[in-house]
């Protein structure tokens, strides 16, 4: 009997059943997809890092090294499981051509190396350790898609021609967010190429499980070992790897949550509408003695069936879609070994989604308990306006909310996209707000070259403003008396500022700003005192600001000046030109001038740097934003059609009466459109305001968990206010028009016929 009631109910209310099923299926699909992608990304990154045996601590260094001192340190440190020094031959980007594509415009540090001996292996597309032959070269996998390369094509480095043997996965530098890229050649080819590049060292340590990497980093610095370059730890490498694709997953997750909310709202509403329509039947069932539980079951069974069907379809679609969306991850990091875990996670995600929806259904169905048989039967006739327990029908409020949430769903990824695409986004990542950045790193006599460079920029008439920021390594005293290493960048930080999450740039002599990760690590906030040890001299500083930084290991500090000069690790120059349009020409002229002067500088157009570093992430977020727009349009369309149909059904008598007294179908439709006008306007306004404000907070929370604090959207108001609003208006217009089509089937005489 229950099955018959269920089936007849579905057949009798097809529109409600299909829309309920659709909401359940779309919610299940989005959550399953999020789970699949999340597990796949983490699984792929972990598998790659495990197979490649990524070092726990890595110190880049340019200059002399003493292998003996390093070996002594490694042997004497109980945390060190394995140690090795790798050689990285840094090449001029102009010297590298990949199958006809020159890397001259690349903002990455490209170089060659040989396969590691003990760990940190470079792997092929099957995650096996690559054995490279003479004349062959393995190209970082991220360049395959970027330049459309295939194995067998040529790579030219200086005068030498190599054949691409395949593409390599580099567990450390795979992500475009990592600033260096390693090409793999044979040992004899490496020796031959030494003449065209400058050699740097990667000093790598594999630690025993459970060892404290931060404590180890301090021990390394304290031992006075080579540190002319950034130091990176395994957690930061994992973060870099996960961040570029992780942002897309986060966008999908946020969209999923919004969709779940919309689904809950709509399913609750359709159920309330049905309960209102079935009021008499519920009363009758109660009167004849059918128990509350059994009445609830009749309704619940339908939702359970629709939910089960929705879950299966959602899961199947997610399995198909994840293949497409995770293609880039799979290429970059290889297949995840978490296939079954991914399926289990997706299954759990679907179960959770459907569980939440069914709990919401169950709670709504409790209303049937409050409705007594007497009320339901007695209410058939009299005026029920005063009945406080009457099941409400708030169509317009629901439509307003759904339009608002739909706009929110479209606005949030769009804002994230415009923010990450903006050149100003780098100021959240620890890079100043300039047009051009010049780095002097990992070379001899950094201080001398910095001075020369400063003078060149000062004399250049094309330069509007420039600033020099020098970085040195200091020690910070911790409250327990111990000390730890800290890279301090000093100079005028007000000219091309980064974005401060709290406080402001250091101006006074004793002011210091800390990166978010560093402040977290040291447990300091704005106004706190900090003791720095510079060349055996203890200096007191006050923390004046906190900023985000994921460069150079993420734990850095900025000061206006330092009392006493430590050895320079590197220098950075930020430049803006009088004429922004000529920056490319200026950069190439400068490169010539500098190489003539013997200064090795990495010069970057910051806009290009953003495109290079975040290009893949931007493409993926753009894809997620497009998916969000499609999902929002679909949801808004379905909801508005559904509610308009319900409205027309409810107003059937009134519509018939209007027709009887001479209104045309067009006139009546006009009335409905007029009624929808404030609903759409309020919905759009709510969605845009919440998408910009609440969305910013949500995105900020997610980015903060990754180390990028104080996040603010850089909003493209034209797209958000006009574009997204226009999409919403057109969608709602089409949906209302479609929903109102039933009006033409309503006859003028219907109002005169007795309604049973």
């Amino acid at each position, binding site marked *: *009997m*229950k099955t*018959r*009631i269920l089936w*007849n*109910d579905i*057949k*009798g209310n097809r529109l409600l059943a299909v829309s309920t099923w659709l909401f359940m299926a779309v919610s299940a699909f989005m959550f399953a997809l999020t789970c699949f992608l999340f597990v796949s990304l983490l699984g792929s990154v972990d598998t790659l890092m495990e197979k490649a045996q990524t070092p726990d601590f890595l110190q880049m260094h340019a200059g002399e090294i003493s292998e003996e001192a390093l070996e002594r340190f490694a042997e004497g440190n109980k945390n060190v499981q394995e140690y090795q020094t790798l050689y990285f031959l840094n090449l001029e980007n102009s010297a590298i051509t990949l199958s006809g594509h020159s890397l001259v415009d690349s903002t990455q540090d490209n170089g060659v190396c040989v396969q590691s001996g003990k760990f940190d292996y470079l792997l092929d597309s099957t995650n096996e350790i690559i054995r490279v032959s003479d004349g062959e070269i393995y190209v970082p996998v991220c360049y395959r898609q970027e330049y459309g390369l295939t194995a067998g094509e040529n790579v030219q480095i200086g005068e030498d021609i190599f054949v691409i043997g395949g593409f390599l996965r580099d567990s450390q530098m795979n992500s475009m967010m990592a600033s260096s890229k390693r090409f793999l050649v044979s040992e004899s080819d490496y020796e031959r190429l030494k003449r065209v590049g400058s050699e740097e060292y990667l000093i790598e340590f594999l630690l025993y499980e459970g060892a404290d990497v931060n404590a180890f980093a301090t021990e390394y610095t304290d031992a006075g070992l080579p540190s002319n370059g950034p130091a990176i730890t395994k957690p930061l490498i994992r973060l870099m790897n996960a961040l570029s694709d992780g942002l897309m997953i986060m966008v999908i997750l946020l969209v999923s949550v919004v969709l779940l909310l919309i689904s809950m709202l709509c399913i609750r509403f359709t159920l309330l509408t049905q309960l209102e329509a079935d009021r*008499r*039947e519920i*009363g*009758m*069932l*109660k*009167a*004849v*003695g*059918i*128990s*509350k539980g*059994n009445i609830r079951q*009749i309704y619940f069974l339908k939702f359970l069936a629709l939910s089960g069907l929705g879950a299966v379809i959602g899961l199947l679609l997610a399995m198909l879609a994840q293949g497409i969306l995770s293609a880039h991850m799979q290429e970059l990091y290889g297949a995840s070994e978490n296939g079954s875990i991914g399926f289990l996670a997706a299954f759990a995600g679907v179960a959770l989604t459907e569980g939440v929806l069914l709990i919401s259904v169950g709670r709504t169905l409790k209303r049937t308990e409050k409705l*007594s*048989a*007497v009320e339901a*039967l*007695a209410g*058939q006739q009299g005026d029920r306006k005063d009945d406080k327990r009457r099941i409400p029908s708030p169509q317009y409020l629901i439509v307003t909310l759904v339009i608002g949430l739909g706009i929110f769903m479209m606005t949030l990824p769009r804002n994230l996209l415009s923010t990450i695409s903006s050149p100003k986004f780098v100021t959240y990542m620890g890079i100043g707000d300039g047009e051009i950045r010049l780095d002097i790193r990992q070379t001899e006599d950094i201080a001398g070259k910095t001075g020369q460079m400063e003078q060149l920029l000062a004399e250049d008439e094309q330069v509007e403003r420039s600033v020099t920021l020098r970085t040195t390594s200091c020690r910070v005293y911790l409250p327990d008396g111990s000390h730890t290493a800290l890279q301090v960048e000093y100079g005028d930080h007000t000219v091309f500022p980064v974005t401060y999450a709290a406080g402001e740039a250091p101006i006074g002599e004793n002011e210091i700003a800390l990166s978010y990760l560093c402040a977290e690590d040291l447990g300091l906030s704005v106004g706190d005192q900090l003791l720095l040890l510079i060349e055996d001299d203890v200096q007191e500083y006050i923390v004046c600001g906190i900023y985000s930084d994921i460069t150079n290991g993420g734990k850095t500090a900025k000061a206006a000046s330092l009392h006493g000069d430590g050895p320079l690790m590197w220098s950075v120059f930020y430049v803006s030109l009088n004429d922004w349009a000529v920056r490319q020409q200026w950069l190439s002229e400068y490169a010539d001038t500098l190489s003539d002067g013997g200064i090795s500088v990495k010069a970057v157009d910051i806009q290009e740097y953003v495109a290079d570093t975040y290009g893949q992430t931007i493409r993926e977020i753009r894809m997620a934003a497009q998916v969000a727009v499609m999902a929002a349009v679909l949801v808004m369309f379905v909801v508005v059609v559904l509610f308009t149909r319900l409205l027309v059904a409810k107003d059937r008598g009134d519509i018939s009466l209007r027709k009887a007294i001479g209104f045309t179908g067009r006139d009546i439709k006009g009335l409905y459109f007029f009624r929808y006008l404030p609903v759409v306007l309020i919905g759009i306004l709510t969605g845009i305001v919440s998408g910009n404000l609440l969305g910013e907070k949500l995105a900020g929370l997610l980015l903060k968990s990754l180390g990028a604090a104080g996040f603010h959207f850089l909003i493209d108001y034209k797209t958000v206010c006009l574009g997204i609003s226009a999409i919403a208006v057109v969608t709602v217009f089409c949906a209302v028009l479609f929903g109102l089509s039933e009006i033409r089937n309503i006859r003028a005489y219907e109002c005169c016929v007795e309604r049973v």
Partner: protein
Amino acid sequence: MSEILVVKHLYKDGILKDISFTVNVGEMTAVMGPSGSGKSTLLYQVSGMDRADSGKVWVDGTEICSLSEDERAKFRLERMGFVFQQMNMLKNLNLIDNIMLPASRLGKGKSSGKEISNRAGLLMRKMGIEELAERRITEVSGGQLQRACICRSMMKQPKILFADEPTGALNHGAAQEVMEEFTRLNREGTTILMVTHDSKVAAKCGRILYLLDGSIKGELSLAGLPEGQRREERVSRWLDVMGW
């Protein structure tokens, strides 16, 4: 003659005031009164659909006011039958499925599907609606629908059948047909308590209670009087006396 329904000192929301009466097994009793006198409210209290503020109601020896809502629902399902003015039925089921509803697993019935279906068939045959079994409820007339409601109320062979204005929504012919069915059921032994404002309907019953402003103001026994015009005139005169 044993009592099947005993009502003592019943009060409800100021609508019912100190109502006491009894109904014996096999009786067909009508409750009459003007609109707002509390007829339907009285029916809801004595059938356990609602709980009275005070007073006691015994149905077939069980005091139902002290039962919980679920216990009362179970009691109604097992021992009572209901017929309403509005012929409430589930629109998504056909006529026979609606009739079988209280006896089905949904009503936690213990009978087998075949037994239920046979009984529904039998009742429909008796009511003359057997050929309409597979029709949807929108495809039959009001009289046929009300007869189907009577079938549904009889599915579990109730001890007492309550009817609330069972002919209120029917035309004259259909109302007569339905009343004939009630009379037949009563002759076969079913006890019936019926709320009505139609004196001709009330004249078919053996006893009439007159309700005014929530209290029973009078009682008329028609036992022994032959059916027909004389009986209807007797009821009309009595109602005149009562101020109808």
